[in-house]
């Protein structure tokens, strides 16, 4: 059934199609519509789930950790500071091996207050062990909600799907949705590996010394690696069932490309247009969209990018002093390949600033002009004069 949905409501529909049993959430702009619609769905009975209206995001994650430990499919959504407040419990959900799905609307972190999009909230969770999937369209958001549960439940790890504030969260698109009756063809009812069962009492998360803790972390690492192929199969199976799939990464016009632009999120859609235009003019350009960020699809990224002569990575985020976070990941992915590909790292769009075709053209012009980057990190469009009013 086709509906006109904003990205936030596409997530609510995705949670409904996934037949979630417990939701716990706390309001934060720009995530709020997700839980508003889910509240309505729970109230009307069209979604048979308990919704715990908690007093903080920390409690939201703690509550779904509890419900997932009790053995039911559990969901939450947040953004920015809410995700940062959850941070401790994200580690807990990973360590407890609970397949919770979390939707995060990418929003900049204060101070100063800013409700617009960038990726520093989700990328700050890089080493929690949370699976991270970045979406480009509202259809992808809906579809990825189901895929995230599929992957999470297969490897017993929590997963986060990520969408850009406003560009997706508050922008309406036509989305093909379905209910849990159809969703279960792809995503059968959750069968927990273990759960809190009074008939089979066990203790979870006890004090564990160096003799065992090390192995438990190694198991998480191995399951993260396994999750790459699990995610690939989950996406392919989704494609077979519903006719839509996205890949772990997506190559766009990379055939014969000498320079490959790397993007994530909604910047990708704009980049497609710019690549098309410049291809028309005969430039050998291609695009690689990173969809799965954790676990990192190392082989896919290497396979595509080692064919290029130059790589240009756009980051809507910043690892202060070292540069863009996707750029760092890709640099390290390319290190042990015996192929040296110069990597241009571009920062753009932080705090929700528009990344227009002009911005992308400037980026591609810089990458085309020289053989080798003249700066480790290029900040595009910085208004230095205006910054000087801070008095320094």
């Amino acid at each position, binding site marked *: 059934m086709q509906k006109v949905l904003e990205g936030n409501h596409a997530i609510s529909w995705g949670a409904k199609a996934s037949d979630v*049993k417990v939701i716990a959430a706390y309001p934060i702009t720009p995530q709020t519509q997700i839980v508003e619609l889910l509240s309505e769905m729970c109230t009307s009975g069209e979604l048979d789930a308990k919704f715990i209206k908690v007093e903080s995001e920390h*409690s939201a994650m*703690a509550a779904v950790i509890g419900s997932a430990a009790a053995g039911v499919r559990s969901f939450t959504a947040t953004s920015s500071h809410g995700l940062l407040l959850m941070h401790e419990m994200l580690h807990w959900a990973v360590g407890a091996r609970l397949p919770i799905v979390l939707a995060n609307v990418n929003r900049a972190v204060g101070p100063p207050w800013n409700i617009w999009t960038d990726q520093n909230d989700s990328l700050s969770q890089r080493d929690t062990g949370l699976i991270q999937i970045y979406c480009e369209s509202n259809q992808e958001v809906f579809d990825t909600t189901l895929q995230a549960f599929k992957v999470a439940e297969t490897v017993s790890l929590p997963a986060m799907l990520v969408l850009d504030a406003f560009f997706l969260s508050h922008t309406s698109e036509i989305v093909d949705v379905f209910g849990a009756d159809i969703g279960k063809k792809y995503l059968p009812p959750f069968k927990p590996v273990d759960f809190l069962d009074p008939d089979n009492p066990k203790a979870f998360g006890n004090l564990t010394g160096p003799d065992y803790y090390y192995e438990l972390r190694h198991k998480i690492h191995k399951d993260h690696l396994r999750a790459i192929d699990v995610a690939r199969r989950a996406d392919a199976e989704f494609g077979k069932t519903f006719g839509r799939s996205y890949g772990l990464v997506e190559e766009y016009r990379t055939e014969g490309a000498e320079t490959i632009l790397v993007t994530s999120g909604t910047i990708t859609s704009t980049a497609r247009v710019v690549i098309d235009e410049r291809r028309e003019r005969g430039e050998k350009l291609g695009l690689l969209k990173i969809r799965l960020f954790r676990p990192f699809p190392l082989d896919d990224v290497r396979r595509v990018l080692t064919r290029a002569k130059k790589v240009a990575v756009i980051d809507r985020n910043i690892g202060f002093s070292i540069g863009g976070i996707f750029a760092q990941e890709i640099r390290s992915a390319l290190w042990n390949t015996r192929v040296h590909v110069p990597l241009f790292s571009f920062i753009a769009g932080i705090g929700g600033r528009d990344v227009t075709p002009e911005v992308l053209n400037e980026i591609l012009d810089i990458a085309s002009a020289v053989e080798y980057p003249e700066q480790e990190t290029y900040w595009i469009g910085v208004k230095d004069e205006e910054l000087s009013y801070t008095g320094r």
Partner: protein
Amino acid sequence: MRNFPIPEDELMTSGHLACQGCGATQAMRFALKALGKQTVIVMPACCWSVIDGPFPHSAVQVPVFHTAFETAASCAAGVKAGLDMRGDHETAVLAWAGDGGTFDIGFQALSGAAERNDDIIFACYDNEAYMNTGVQRSSATPFGAWTTTTPHPHTKSHPKKSMFEILAAHRIPYLATASVAYPNDLVDKFRRAREIRGMKFIHIIAPCPAGWKSAPEKTVELARLAVQSRLFPLVEVWQGKYYLVKKDLPYKPVTDYLSQQGRFAALSEADIGRIQADIEERWEELLRKEQLGGPVPGNA
């Protein structure tokens, strides 16, 4: 066979890692006797995180979910929602926290669960400081007590936070205090809590020889003197309104209680006078509240 008012079944086993004379261990033993096997425990960071034993052991014969320090109430609310959605409405969910996880870091989540009236039992075994980390003051530490962060001569200058009154103000269905020196009473209260739907809070005074600088064999005696001195009266409150205060116990002056604990060694006469006056004021307040609420309704 003798008619034991307390079940003979032991759901807490030997082999746990508690210190000698640990009041928190007594509290768990009796709480589980009352609640029975159909119970799930949610355990935030507290002494019991250690007492339960290291992986792969557990000293209790019910499921235990260890969780982060500030999440006893929110995690327990989630467990309850999960069990409900599995169709299990019988299992009691017990959040089992120390005073730090209740009065301080766990306070926000506790208040949230109380306001939502989540169907859980939140039990606080109160040993009046961060004992697991080596005796640091909490907001449950009483006036005049020594801890490692309120060293002599700067012992705690403020009175203990009245968690009981704060929970009463949430108007939760059931609220009670209990003492490990009165196991029959403690078991009764946990049994009552199990039968009531919605939020239940049970505040247990649990002496800690290591932190109180008291003799391990004096734990039960101190837990009794805390009650009899009226420093820690045995009270039940329904819906935040109907109070029932246990008044038929012998009265003992608070000095009997204070003098057996090294943590109070530096109290002056004036300090003891202040503590005694505070006890009397609070006791009178409690009796007035009991009178004001009137008789406990039969359906409470």
